[in-house]
């Protein structure tokens, strides 16, 4: 009705004020959404990292295996199963591994390690360790009894590239045996305890020592869509009830816990941002209402009742919000897209991080599902913030307002 017309025209009467409120809403929305995009990019980075280095999306074991990593706890028909997984359309890459614990030693020092016997071509598709080498190569020379160890471990053992070390392990039949290996490469991942305790050899070499033949202890799967890990794992669990199928979050619950923490933190941070937005708008509008005292006084003098004045002010805020929101969405899309391709380099903000030598680049990403809730929350905040100033407008006494200089 008339109120709408007046409210709408009022907005354009004072362009500066309208633009400021509008921008506040837009920026508020942008801030909330960008924050979420940032957080999601962050979580993805941390999770992806762990997945690419060691966890993969899904791991399959003999149910007895994870307890103590017994040599005998092999996967029934492991190699056949591995082939099946490779054919599975949901699976991007699969790698079978022989795993055992043992001791690595050289001259004066020894250390406990977990030895991964891998097939180079498969492992290259699944693990980023294959490219995280600081020295040497990932078994590209094709020699026998080569080993790739973490740089940290190399330091601890005081060995270098091409040094010889001895691996002592317990075979399938229970005897202790040892094998001499040559260091072919040194790797460095972001997880230094992983670096210190994990070593890689070729599957054939390890199997020969262990006496496990063609059998494997672990199948690691990288899925095409990592987010489907849970449902896909569930279906595998049903398909292979005798095997232990685990998602990365089941294997390393600490990681899931970290992401859970970040989720909660995100909501709190967004809450604070929206509160800041609300107060910003409230103050701006309060000031605007103060500026329009005379106008409100006149309106009440000629007979516009308080309810109508209230709604007029509220409508103005509502319309400004309606314009501000799409502007905010546009802003978000532009910025997220920009940073999603370039990435935000965190080491620019932390001296210590850049010294660590890892590129800490975060790629913000925004799920469609987030757009609506955040937009609604921002809209709600904006409207709520308009209520108090609108109420204030009613407090002006017409007599005072009209004759105010």
């Amino acid at each position, binding site marked *: *009705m008339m109120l709408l017309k007046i409210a709408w025209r009022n907005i*354009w009467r004072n362009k500066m004020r309208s633009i400021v409120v509008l921008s506040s809403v837009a920026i508020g929305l942008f801030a909330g959404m960008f924050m979420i995009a940032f957080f999601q990019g962050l979580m993805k980075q941390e999770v992806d990292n762990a997945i690419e280095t060691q966890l993969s999306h899904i791991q399959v074991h003999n149910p007895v295996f994870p307890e103590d990593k017994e040599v005998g706890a092999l996967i029934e028909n492991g190699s056949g199963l591995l082939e099946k997984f490779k054919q599975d359309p949901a699976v991007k890459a699969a790698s079978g591994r022989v795993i055992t614990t043992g001791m690595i030693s050289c001259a004066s020092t020894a250390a406990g390690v977990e030895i991964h016997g891998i097939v180079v071509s498969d492992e290259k598709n699944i693990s980023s360790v294959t490219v995280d080498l600081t020295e040497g190569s990932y078994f590209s020379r094709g020699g026998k009894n080569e080993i790739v160890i973490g740089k940290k471990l190399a330091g601890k053992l005081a060995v270098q590239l091409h040094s010889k070390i001895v691996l002592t392990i317990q075979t399938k039949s229970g005897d202790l045996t040892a094998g001499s290996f040559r260091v072919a490469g040194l790797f460095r991942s972001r997880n230094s305890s992983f670096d210190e305790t994990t070593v890689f050899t070729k599957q054939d070499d390890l199997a020969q020592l262990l006496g496990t033949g063609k059998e494997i202890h672990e199948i690691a799967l990288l899925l095409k869509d990592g987010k489907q890990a849970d449902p896909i794992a569930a279906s595998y669990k049903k398909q292979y009830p005798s095997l232990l199928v685990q998602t990365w979050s089941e294997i390393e619950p600490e990681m899931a816990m970290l992401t859970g923490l970040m989720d909660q933190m995100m909501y709190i941070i967004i809450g604070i941002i929206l509160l800041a937005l609300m107060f910003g708008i409230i103050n701006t509008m309060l000031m605007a209402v103060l500026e329009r005292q005379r*106008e409100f006084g*006149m309106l009440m*003098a000629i*007979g516009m*009742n*308080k309810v109508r004045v209230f709604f007029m002010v509220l409508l103005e805020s509502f319309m400004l919000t309606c314009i501000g929101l799409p502007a905010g969405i546009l802003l978000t899309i532009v910025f997220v897209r920009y940073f999603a391709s370039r990435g935000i380099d965190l080491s620019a903000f932390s001296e210590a991080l850049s010294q660590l030598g890892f590129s800490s680049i975060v790629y913000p990403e925004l799920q469609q599902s987030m757009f609506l809730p955040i937009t609604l929350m921002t809209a709600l905040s904006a409207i709520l913030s308009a209520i108090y100033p609108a109420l204030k407008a009613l407090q002006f006494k017409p007599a005072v307002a009209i004759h105010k200089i």
Partner: protein
Amino acid sequence: MNTIIELHNLSKVYNPKTIPVYAVNGVDLQIEEGEFTALVGPSGSGKTTLLNLIGGLDYPSGGEVKIEGVDITKMNENKLIDFRLKNIGFVFQAYNLIPVLTARENVEFVMLMQKKPKIERDKLVADLLTEVGLSDKRDSRPSELSGGQQQRVAVARALASKPRFILADEPTANLDSKSATNLLEIMAKLNKEDHMTFLFSTHDQRVIDKARRIVTLVDGKVISDTKNQPH
């Protein structure tokens, strides 16, 4: 004749606890229907305050204001706004119109608030604008009108709600001679032909000359109340 406005021992005090200022000090007054009366007095005499009290824009410190027998001093703010809408027309010195509405919409505005049907609204708006001689400016915004034209639209607007009387606070103060005279003629005509009651507060001699009753205020008290021959 009908007594429209009755004031009994009306007073308004500012700063009662510190340094009391009696803007209006025990005023008794009666205005009949059809009057064309000017409230005069030096600056600070309380004219504006008195007008505010009559129009229900402010509450008195003491006394009564009765409009057609209804004591408006007892009403709460919301009721007052409604009362004003139905019974009182205002013309202020300046800033009378809603800046974002056209002349026509400004006049129509009060009728919309009274929820009058469209046909009635359109007719009355057209009539009123013609009466004040501004039919051709009906789609102009206040910023596009001269001071005099704005005041004339204000008069049309004041009339649109079919009030009992119109209060005008220094309506000619910002106008040049020609516009002032013009405005006065329109108001005088409305008073004569439609028996619309006008109560002015004014300095302007031209207005005083046209009034048929002159009430003089000094320091918040009525010191004289005389009949006048308009000229």
